[in-house]
C-alpha cells in the first residue's frame, strides 16, 4: 500500500513553474529516490510534501489522508471569542472610556472609607450608554443634574427629590428640543411648553437665547443616539474583523510544516539547517518536542514527572545519536561539528520526531566515499526499523545501490520511473541526467 501519494502535484512561483504534474506513489518500507539535474524541482517536491510551499494544484496524501489541520469546534469557538474580544474593546473605546469611568466608578465612589456598590455602578454604566441624564451627589448634600458623560452640568438642586424633578424637566426639554417649533412666543417671553401637561418648562427673554439653549439641548439629545450607533458599528465591525482575521490566520496555517511533521513525516535539508548554537543533544531533544508534555508551570517548577520524562527523552536521544554514529558528541555545539557529522545529526533530529516517512535531501553531499558508504548502511538500517525513506541524491552509487524505486525529474516534469535497472536503461533519463550529447 502506498504510504505517500502525489497526485498531479504542481508548484508555481509567480510565473515560474518549478514542478508540473508529478505523480508518485511511495510504498511502505521502500527506499524511494528522486534524481534529476540540479534545478529540476526535486527539493521543491520535498518542500511541497512538508508544507513549506503550498502546492499550486494537485494533491498530497499521506496514509490516505490529506495533511491538513482538522477543523474542530475549538477553532470556531476561538474565532468567535477573538471576535467578541475585539468587538468589545473597539466598542469600549468608541463610547469614550474616560466618560464611562467617570459615570460608573467616580460617580459611585467618593473616596476612602466610602462604600461602593458595584450594582449601582453597572446601572450607571447602562444609563450612560442609554444617554440618560445622571444625578451627582455633591459636597454639602447638593445634587447636580449632568449629561451622561458628566461633561455638562445642566442644573443644581438642594435635595434628591428636587433633583429628580429637575431631571424630569430637562428630559422633557431635551425631548422637545429636537421637535420643530418647541419655542413659542408668549407675551414678551419666549417659552417652551410641554404639549402633554401644558406645563411651562422654560422661558427666555429673546428668541436668540431660546434658540441657543434649545440647540444645546438638541445636541445633547442627538449625542447618545450617535454614540450608540457608533458603539454598535464598532462592535459589529470589531467582531467581524476579529473573527475573520482569526479565521484567516487559522486557514493560512492549515497545511504547515508543523502539522505535517506531527502527522509522521520528517525531513533533512539540502543546506544543513541545524540549530547551530544548541548542543547536539538539544538538537535531537528539540526533535522530540511533540512527545514531551507538561504545562509551563510544571516545567518551571521541574516537577518530578517532568524530570523523569526529560531523563527518558535524553536516554532516547542518546540511542538515536548512537544509531547515527554520533555517540560521545552529545555536548558539542552543532556548529562545531564537522560537515559529515552535521548531516548525521540532521538525520538523528529527524528521527527524533518518530516519523514513519523520512525525507532525506542530499544526505551524502560533502561526504567522502567511505562516509557515503556508511550512510548507505544507515539508510538501509532505517528501512529495517520499519521506516519509509524518500531520498534526493546525486551520488549515483548511493542511489543505485540502495533504492527500491527511482523517479527522475527534469524541469519539474517526471521523465522516468522504475527500479534502478529500469531507470539506468531509460534513454530519456540518460539524455537528461547524464549530460546532453548534443554538445560536441
Amino acid at each position, binding site marked *: 500500500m502506498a504510504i505517500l501519494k502525489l497526485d498531479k502535484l504542481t508548484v508555481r512561483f509567480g510565473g515560474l513553474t518549478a514542478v508540473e504534474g508529478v505523480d508518485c506513489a511511495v510504498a511502505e518500507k521502500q527506499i524511494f529516490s528522486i534524481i534529476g539535474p540540479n534545478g529540476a524541482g526535486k527539493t521543491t517536491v520535498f518542500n511541497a510534501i512538508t508544507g513549506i510551499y503550498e502546492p499550486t494544484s494537485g494533491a498530497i496524501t499521506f496514509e490516505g489522508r490529506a495533511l491538513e489541520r482538522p477543523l474542530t469546534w475549538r477553532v470556531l469557538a476561538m474565532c468567535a471569542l477573538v471576535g467578541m474580544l475585539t468587538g468589545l474593546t473597539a466598542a469600549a473605546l468608541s463610547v469614550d472610556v474616560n466618560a464611562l469611568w467617570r459615570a460608573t466608578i467616580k460617580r459611585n465612589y467618593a473616596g476612602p472609607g466610602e462604600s461602593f456598590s458595584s450594582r449601582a455602578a453597572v446601572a450607571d454604566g447602562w444609563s450612560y450608554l442609554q444617554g440618560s441624564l445622571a444625578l451627582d451627589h455633591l459636597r454639602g448634600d447638593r445634587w447636580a443634574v449632568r449629561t451622561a458623560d458628566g461633561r455638562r452640568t445642566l442644573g443644581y438642586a438642594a435635595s434628591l427629590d428636587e433633583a429628580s424633578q429637575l431631571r424630569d424637566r430637562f428630559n422633557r426639554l431635551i425631548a422637545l428640543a429636537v421637535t420643530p417649533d418647541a419655542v413659542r412666543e408668549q407675551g414678551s417671553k419666549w417659552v417652551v411648553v410641554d404639549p402633554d401637561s401644558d406645563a411651562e418648562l422654560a422661558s427666555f427673554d429673546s428668541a436668540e437665547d431660546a434658540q441657543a439653549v434649545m440647540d444645546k439641548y438638541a*445636541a445633547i439629545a442627538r449625542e447618545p443616539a450617535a454614540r450608540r450607533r457608533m458603539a454598535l458599528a464598532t462592535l459589529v465591525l470589531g467582531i467581524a474583523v476579529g473573527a475573520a482575521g482569526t479565521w484567516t490566520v487559522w486557514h493560512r496555517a492549515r497545511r504547515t510544516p508543523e502539522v505535517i511533521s506531527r502527522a509522521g513525516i520528517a525531513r533533512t535539508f539540502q543546506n544543513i539547517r541545524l540549530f547551530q548554537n544548541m548542543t547536539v543533544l538539544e538538537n535531537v531533544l528539540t526533535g522530540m518536542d511533540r512527545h514531551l508534555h507538561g504545562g509551563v508551570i510544571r516545567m518551571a517548577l521541574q516537577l518530578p514527572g517532568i524530570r523523569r520524562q526529560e531523563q527518558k527523552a535524553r536516554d532516547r536521544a542518546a540511542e538515536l545519536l548512537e544509531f547515527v554514529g554520533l555517540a560521545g558528541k552529545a555536548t558539542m555545539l552543532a556548529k562545531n561539528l564537522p560537515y559529515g557529522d552535521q548531516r548525521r545529526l540532521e538525520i538523528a533530529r529527524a528521527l527524533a520526531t518518530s516519523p514513519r516517512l523520512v525525507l532525506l535531501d542530499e544526505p551524502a553531499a560533502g561526504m567522502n566515499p567511505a562516509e557515503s558508504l556508511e550512510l548507505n548502511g544507515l539508510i538501509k538500517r532505517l528501512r529495517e526499523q520499519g521506516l519509509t525513506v524518500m531520498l534526493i541524491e546525486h551520488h549515483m552509487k548511493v542511489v543505485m545501490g540502495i533504492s527500491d524505486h527511482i523517479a527522475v525529474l527534469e524541469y519539474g516534469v517526471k521523465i522516468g520511473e522504475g527500479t534502478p535497472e529500469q531507470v539506468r536503461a531509460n534513454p530519456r533519463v540518460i539524455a537528461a541526467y547524464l549530460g546532453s550529447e548534443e554538445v560536441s
Partner: protein
Amino acid sequence: MTSLSFLAAADASGLWETLGQYTLIGLTNGMLFALIALGYTMVYGIIELINFAHGDVFMLGSFLALAMINVMTGRDWDWSDPQMLWLGIGLLLLVVPLFCAALNVTIDRVVYKPLRRAPKLAPLVSAIGVSFVLMNVGLLWGGAADRHFPDLISRQNLLGDDAAIGFTAKDLMVVAITVPIMAALTVFVKATRLGKAMRATAQDPVAAQLMGINIDRVIALTFALGGALAGAAAVVYGLYINTVSYQMGFQNGLYAFTAAVLGGIGNIPGAVLGGLVIGLARAFGSGYVGERWTSALVFVILIAILVFRPAGLLGARTREKV
C-alpha cells in the same frame, strides 16, 4: 473627540476647505518626514542597520543652521531683503548638508564599520550609543531648553488673505526645497553610475563585489547622502517649525523611521510614500480626532498596515530559500 468635534471643525469653514487644508498641512509635514526617512531607508537597504543616530544627526544639523544664522545676523546679513534671504538659505542648504554628510560618514567609519560581521544586534546598540552621544553634544551645544529658530519667512497666505485654504510662503519654501531634492535623489539613484552601484549593492552585495564595486565606498556614499538629506531637512525644519531642541532628533527620527518601515524599509519611493502617509495621518488626526491622540493614531495606522502588509506598503515579500 468623537464625531462631535468633526462636525464642529467642519462647521467652521466648510467640509471641503477643512479637508483641503489638512491635506496640505499633512503633505508639507510629510515631505519633511520623507526627507529624514530617506536616510534611514537607504542605510537600512545597504547594511540592514536601523541607524538610530540618524535623527540626532538631523538635530545637530538644525543647531548648526541656527548658529550660522546667528553669526550671519551678527554680521548684518539682511534677511528682510528677499535676495539676501534666498542667498542665505542657499548657503545654509550648502553648508549644513555637507556637515551632516561628513558627520554621518565619520560615524559609519568609526563605529559601524568594525561591526560589519558582528551579531546583528551589536551595531544596533552601537547606533543607540551614538544617538546618546550626539544628543549629549546637542545638549552641551544648545542647552536643555527649547531654542527659538528665527522666523525668517513670512506666514502670509499666498492665496490671498481671505482664501479658505492657507498656503503660506513657508509651505511654499518646504515644497520648493524638498521636491527638487527628492527629484535629484531619484535621478541620482536611477540614472548615475554610482546610484546604480548603490542599488546593486543593496540588492546583492556579493554580486556587486563581483562586478568590481567597492562596497565600502558605496556604503560611505550612502551615509553621506543620507546625512546630506537630513541636513537639508534640518534647515527646512528650523525655518518651518521655528523651534529646535536637543531632543527633537529623537521624536522626529521616530516618525521618520516609522515612515521608512511603513513604506517598506530599504525602498526609496516607499520612504517618501510612508512620510506622506504619516504626515497626512498626523494632520487628519489632529484635525478630526484630537491633537493628543495624534501620535497614538500614527502608530495604530502603522500596526494595522503592517498586519496586512507585513513588508510595508511598497516592500516586496521574499521567499525563503530552503
